[in-house]
């Protein structure tokens, strides 16, 4: 392997070497940025190391993740270059040291183990193409890590479609999208058909008021990846979705999932939900939702989507009254049960039996095909 950092004699050569080094760290830098740096340097080289670093950072960084890691990479590069220039590094082949990842907190590691079933997270980043048709009928529990990205993309598409659904009703519009001929003529009749102004119309956007409540207990572990991506996908495309997760107690995840970076989301989720993969207390968790958020979030246009297999290890006394309340306070109460995709599935758990009379739509959520079916419900 060719050594990445060696002594160079000219500024452009140094720049090209640094950019190559940066690319090995995952930065996408084009020639355009290189030219920009050179044109800035032509006008005057920043006087201090900190300012030089700030200059490179401002031009080469394109997102938050890069912004936060750039400083360390820059320092690392110049340290190694200084060593090379001191002649302390021999020209023999030697790999550039990659900074060791910082030790993750145990709860984050637990979440990652739960999420990836112990597989290395790096594998997930290598997403490969997989046709929608091929995966749409595949059970989420058997998803391979390299289909991770496809799954997120499809969930995002579905979520976006849901959140921007147009109603059949036209409303008055103040932008000139479509002339409302009927209304324009009706108003013009008052002036002997003299058109003084046009009236416009547009399709009303049905604003989705969705409350997502997901079960993240041990019994749902097989669907863990799908669960987090499902919640994340929804939160990324619409502002009007409130997301909650529960196992033994309920936690609001709306703000956590709104972060644009999935890695940050995972880190924050680990702090937010300390009970991943533990027991299930559906009744108590839903009751907690009713008390803390029910009146604040729900109205007659709300759709509540509960994603759970219905296994309850806690007290089921409160399920019936809470489900009755949730049905009354929402326009639709949908229960997605991953187990319902099995042809032999029967409602047998106590919690599920108590909840069934109050559910408007009971559907499976074990593959993308079933997920797409939900779109038609809205």
């Amino acid at each position, binding site marked *: 392997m060719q050594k990445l950092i060696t002594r160079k004699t000219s500024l452009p050569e140094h720049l090209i070497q640094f950019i190559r080094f940066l690319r090995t760290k995952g930065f996408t830098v084009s020639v355009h940025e290189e030219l920009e740096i050179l044109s800035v340097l032509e006008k005057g080289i920043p006087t201090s190391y900190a300012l030089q670093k*700030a200059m490179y950072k401002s*031009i080469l960084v394109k997102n*938050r993740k890069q912004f936060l890691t750039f400083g360390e990479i820059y320092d690392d590069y110049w340290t190694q270059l200084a060593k090379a220039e001191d002649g302390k590094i021999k020209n023999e082949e030697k790999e550039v040291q990659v900074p060791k990842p910082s030790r993750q907190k145990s709860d984050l590691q637990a979440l990652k183990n739960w999420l990836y079933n112990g597989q290395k997270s790096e594998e997930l980043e290598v997403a490969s193409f997989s046709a929608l048709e091929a995966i749409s009928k595949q059970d989420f529990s058997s998803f391979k890590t390299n289909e991770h990205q496809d799954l997120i993309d499809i969930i995002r598409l579905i979520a976006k479609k849901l959140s921007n659904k147009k109603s059949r009703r036209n409303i008055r519009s103040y932008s*000139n999208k479509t002339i409302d001929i009927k209304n324009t003529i009706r108003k013009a009749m008052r002036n002997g058909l003299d058109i003084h*102004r046009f009236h416009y119309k547009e399709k009303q*956007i049905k604003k989705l008021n969705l409350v997502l409540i997901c079960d993240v207990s041990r019994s749902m572990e097989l669907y863990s990846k799908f669960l987090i991506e499902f919640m994340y996908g929804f939160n990324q495309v619409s*502002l009007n979705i409130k997301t909650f997760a529960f196992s033994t107690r309920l936690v*609001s995840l709306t703000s956590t999932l709104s972060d*644009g970076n999935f890695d940050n989301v995972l880190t924050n989720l680990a702090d937010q939900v300390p009970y991943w993969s533990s027991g299930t207390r559906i009744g108590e968790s839903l009751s907690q939702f009713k008390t803390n958020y029910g009146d604040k979030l729900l109205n007659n246009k709300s759709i509540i989507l509960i994603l759970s297999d219905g296994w309850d290890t806690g007290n089921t006394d409160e399920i019936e009254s809470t489900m009755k309340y949730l049905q009354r306070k929402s326009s639709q109460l949908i229960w997605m049960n991953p187990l319902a995709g099995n042809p032999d599935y029967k409602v047998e758990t106590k919690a599920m039996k108590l909840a069934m009379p109050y559910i408007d739509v009971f559907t499976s959520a074990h593959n993308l095909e079933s997920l797409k079916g939900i779109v038609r419900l809205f």
Partner: protein
Amino acid sequence: MDIQQIKEKFSKQSYITDDAISMSIHLSILLQKPLLIEGPAGVGKTEIAKVMAQVMDTNLIRLQCYEGLDANHAIYEWNYQKQLLFLKMQENENMTLKEKEANIFSDDFLMKRPLLQSIMQEKAPVLLIDEIDRADEEFESFFLELLSDWQITIPEIGTQKAKNIPHVIITGNRTRELSEALRRRCLYLWIDYPDFEKELSIVLSKNPTINKKLANQICLFMKEVRQLKLEKNPGIAETLDWATALSSMHIEHLDKEIVESTLGVILKDWQDIRTSQDSLAELFERVGVKQKLA
């Protein structure tokens, strides 16, 4: 403007910059490239554009983005009502259709929206595209078109080239991921919550009359509150509001009663207020606020 001048001029307008901020502004002006600023709400992203316009003694043109923002609201729109009225007034005059058309599709009937306005200015203005992540992806596409050529084509009157390229500041709260194409065309700056020293200097700069002990306690308190994992962390804007409120009440130091009664100034979510109330004793201990014994 070099970096030192930017720091000084911004400081005169009570905006404290660090190396990253001043370098980004300097390069944005030098390379005539938009500056994309991301960060949590209330850390001073929008303020950069406002102060930049003041410092450069130029106009600030602001486009507030929202879901459904389209070209008519962002670029231009014909004033149809005025055109109809004009045609009505010209009914009895012997003008050919071509002449009438030339009249009604002229500058007088063109309603210039922020993007068109920004390229028609005699002196390069500061164009603030605020909260771009709230607009749809379609908006990003036609905005990209503008960024690449700095010209806008109006079919009826032709292509309008920029008289001066505006200084573009784009802000976002990361409610959705922006396209790579847009990121590539911009310089990037992330502004996080400030550290204690920076926040203190901001408070003292914006409120020169505030009691220094109080300012110190406020900044320490805010630093600790942000560690609480709240739904909505308070930003610098909230710190300044709180400092102004307490200072105008002639309060010289924090105590339990004052904090409890003014918590609504910094926290805007009832659950956050409840969470912080539960942790008040601990917060006071860390900040060094003496609690009265019951």
